[in-house]
C-alpha cells in the first residue's frame, strides 16, 4: 500500500523530527523515559504497523544522518573548552581514557566471542563505548554492522549513565575528575548528559573524556584492524 511519496526524503525527515519533538515533550512529564528510545521505538512501531518498507523511511533518515558528520567535528568545541580547564591533569586523563578505550575494545570483543557471538556482532560490539557517530564509522571500518553498533552504543550509554556513577562510588572512585572521565569514556554523550544535570565539574570531565575516547579508540581500532 505504500505509494511513491513515501519514498521521498521528506517523509523520513518529517516523521523523525516530529517523533523527536514529541519524545522531548514526553520526557518533560516522564523524565525516566529516554527520548531516543521513544523516538526510535515509535518510528519502528509506525513502520511495522503501516507496513512501510524500511528503504522508504531510510531515504529521509539518511538526510538526518548526514548531520552526524559535522556534529562529530563540533565535539571539538567542548574538547577545547575543557582542555583549557583541565590542563594540569592531562596526563592522568589521557592515561585513564587510553586504558579505558583499550579495555573497551578488548573486553567487548572477547566477552562477545565467549558468548559465541558471530563475527558481525563481535566487530559491531568493539567500538560501542565511544560516541555514536564515531562508533558507526569504526564498526564500518572494523567490518561490523553500523546499525548494530548504533544500538549497542546507545544501550551502553544508557547502562553506563544509569548504573555507572553508583558502581564507581562503590568501587572507590568518588572524586569529580576520575568519575567524570570514567563515565565519559564508557558511556559517551548519554552518560555526559546525566552528569551535567547533577554536577558541573563531573559533566565537564565527562564531555572531555567522551571526545578524547572517540579519538583514542579510533587510533586503537587501526591497530586492531592491522592485527586481525
Amino acid at each position: 500500500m505504500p505509494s511513491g511519496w513515501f519514498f521521498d526524503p521528506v517523509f523520513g525527515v518529517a516523521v523523525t523530527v516530529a517523533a523527536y519533538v514529541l519524545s522531548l515533550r514526553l520526557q518533560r512529564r516522564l523524565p525516566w523515559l529516554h527520548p531516543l528510545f521513544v523516538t526510535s521505538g515509535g518510528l519502528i512501531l509506525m513502520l511495522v504497523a503501516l507496513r512501510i518498507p524500511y528503504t522508504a523511511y531510510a531515504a529521509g533518515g539518511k538526510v538526518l544522518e548526514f548531520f552526524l558528520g559535522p556534529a562529530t567535528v563540533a565535539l571539538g568545541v567542548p574538547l577545547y573548552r575543557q582542555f583549557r580547564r583541565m590542563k594540569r591533569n592531562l596526563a592522568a586523563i589521557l592515561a585513564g581514557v587510553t586504558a579505558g578505550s583499550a579495555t573497551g575494545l578488548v573486553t567487548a570483543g572477547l566477552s562477545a566471542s565467549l558468548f559465541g557471538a558471530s563475527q558481525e556482532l563481535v566487530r559491531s560490539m568493539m567500538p560501542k563505548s565511544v560516541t555514536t557517530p564515531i562508533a558507526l564509522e569504526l564498526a564500518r571500518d572494523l567490518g561490523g554492522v553500523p546499525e548494530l553498533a548504533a544500538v549497542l552504543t546507545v544501550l551502553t550509554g544508557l547502562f553506563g549513565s544509569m548504573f555507572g556513577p553508583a558502581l564507581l562510588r562503590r568501587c572507590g572512585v568518588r572524586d569529580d575528575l576520575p568519575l567524570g572521565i570514567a563515565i565519559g569514556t564508557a558511556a559517551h554523550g548519554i552518560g555526559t548528559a546525566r552528569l551535567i544535570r547533577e554536577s558541573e565539574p563531573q559533566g565537564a570531565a565527562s564531555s572531555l573524556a567522551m571526545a578524547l575516547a572517540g579519538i583514542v579508540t579510533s587510533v586503537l581500532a587501526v591497530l586492531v584492524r592491522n592485527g586481525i
Partner: protein
Amino acid sequence: MAGFAILTAFLLAGHAIREWGGVPLPANVIGLILFTAALGFRLVKLETVEKAADFLLRHLMLFFAPVVVGVVSFFPLIGREAAAFVGGLVISAVAVLLVTGWTTKALSRETAAGVRAADEAGRAEGAGTGGNARGFDRGG
C-alpha cells in the same frame, strides 16, 4: 551559518585526507582532530563556531535516531545472539568504567584535589584541606 560552514569544511577536509592521504581514521574523527587543533592555535575563533556546534551537539539524538531505526533489519540476528549481545555489553561497560576510573584516580589524586580546591575556593572556607581529605581517605 558561518559556524556550520566551518564545521562542514573540516569534515570535508577529513574525507579528503582519508581518501588521498591514506589516514586510516574515520573522516569525522580526522575533521574533529583538525578542528580542535585549529581552535587551539586560534585559527578558528570559538565564538564563530560555538552556536552551530552547540546546536548540533544538543540535537545529536535526532541525527542518530534513523540509524537506530535501521536495527529493524537486524532483529533476527539480535534474537539469535541475545546472550552475547547483553553479556558483552554489560561486562565490557563495567570493565571500561572501572579501569578508566581507577587509572585516572591513581594518577590524578594530588592534582585532582588541588583542582577541586581551586574550584571550591570561592564556595567554602578551607576548601583546600577539605578537597585533600576527600581525595585521600576513601581508597577503594
